[in-house]
């Protein structure tokens, strides 16, 4: 493990790639945990962007352009591009990197496609730890492309320093529906496909929605930029706004605050999954479930009473009660 970690710190491409598979496959949990713990002291230097928005909005195409610019200033960039796994076969087509393939031979760019593998929230279960691997390996930017965005796909907010929400003209009523939840998660709003009709109208709609929101919370003031990824238009301006937003986060302490919140969520998550796992093991749920179903079905037991008793036994075992 020490060895794999050392190779990652030396930016060994294969070691980075394999450790992400180790994280994704969860075939050896203790090895994964040891790896993340070893990397932890080396994390915290990368700037993490999330890019989200409806499928087809141009997220991958924009990233392609952003990478181009970031490389011009010699920054190393890692991308984690998440696509959905089929709920039927468990398979996936991971096609985001198709739009970024001109960077495939650039050693300063690492693109990793990731299937959601049933994880809800718009990213994969492995995304958070994969960010750490890239961070420790010395990438200046780690950018997460989500599978898309709807009411529940907002986990990217918990993983990134800045969320770029990409919208496009022609979504019609969708923008209405998105006002409620999703608009909340964007730090920077990017209206892509400005070469198409309706981009200006969309901009005023978003400005209107944001003005309603901003009048309630005075702290926020959002920037909106307009781009055309295919025509390479507005990219530099969008990046300037992103960089200046990041600086303000950094300077006024919100960045540290965000990152602490991220750690808080992470710790809570680890705690719940671990407690769940050991409770499951103690209660032997998988094996005993059939018996319990039978008891409850035949009214020999009632659900809450049954489980309160079993969980009580579990907690006693742990000396928690």
């Amino acid at each position: 493990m020490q060895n794999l970690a050392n190779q990652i710190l030396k930016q060994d491409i294969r070691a980075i790639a394999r450790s992400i598979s180790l994280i994704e496959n969860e075939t050896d949990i203790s090895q994964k945990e040891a790896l993340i713990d070893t990397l932890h002291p080396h994390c915290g230097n990368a700037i993490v962007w999330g890019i989200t928005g409806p499928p087809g909005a141009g997220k991958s195409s924009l990233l392609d352009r952003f990478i181009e610019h970031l490389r011009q200033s010699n920054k190393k960039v890692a991308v984690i591009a998440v696509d959905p796994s089929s709920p039927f076969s468990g398979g996936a087509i991971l096609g985001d990197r198709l739009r970024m393939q001109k960077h495939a031979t650039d050693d300063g760019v690492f693109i990793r496609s990731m299937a959601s593998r049933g994880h809800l929230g718009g990213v994969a279960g492995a995304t958070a730890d994969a960010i750490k691997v890239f961070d420790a390996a010395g990438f200046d930017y780690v950018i997460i492309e989500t599978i898309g965005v709807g009411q529940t796909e907002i986990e990217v907010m918990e993983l990134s320093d800045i969320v770029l929400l990409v919208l496009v003209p022609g979504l019609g009523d969708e923008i209405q529906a998105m006002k409620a939840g999703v608009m909340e998660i964007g730090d920077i709003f990017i209206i892509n496909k400005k070469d198409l009709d309706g981009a200006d109208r969309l901009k005023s709609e978003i400005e209107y929605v944001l003005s309603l929101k901003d009048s309630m919370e005075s702290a926020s003031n959002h920037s909106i930029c307009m781009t055309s990824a295919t025509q390479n238009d507005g990219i530099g301006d969008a990046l300037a706004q992103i960089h200046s937003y990041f600086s303000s986060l950094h300077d006024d302490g919100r960045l540290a605050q965000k990152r602490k919140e991220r750690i808080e969520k992470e710790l809570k998550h680890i705690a719940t999954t671990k407690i769940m796992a050991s409770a499951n093991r103690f209660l032997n749920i998988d094996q005993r479930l059939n018996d319990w179903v039978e008891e409850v079905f035949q009214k020999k037991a009632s659900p809450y009473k049954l489980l309160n008793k079993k969980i009580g036994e579990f907690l006693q075992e742990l000396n928690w009660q």
Partner: protein
Amino acid sequence: MTKKIRILIAKPGLDGHDRGAKYVARALKDAGYEVIYTGIRQTPDAIVKTAIQEDVDFIGLSLLSGAHNELFPKVVDLLKLKNADDIIIFGGGVIPESDIPGLKEKGIRAVFTPGTPIKDIIAYIESAK
């Protein structure tokens, strides 16, 4: 959790025939594999670097233009050069029967020509993984 098989489907060279590659990619997804598709016009270098970053188990090359004898072995050689020849390379497309033994000798482990049923391709992957 168990390990997922990851497969890169790639089209080297200038060949624009992408129907077969897309068809195979989709069918392999439906068979439960994670398929990375990078589109047409990939250099052998881009294919190899992509395969390593994506930590794939297989690279499936697709070529209908006739340049397979030149391009397929290039991918094999580059992969060796990068110490990544544990990744299995196979391929398909319009490839004359008479070229197949030569390709296999150069390290292309299996070749599938037009009309191949997808179940043969899956059977191959399952036997080789």
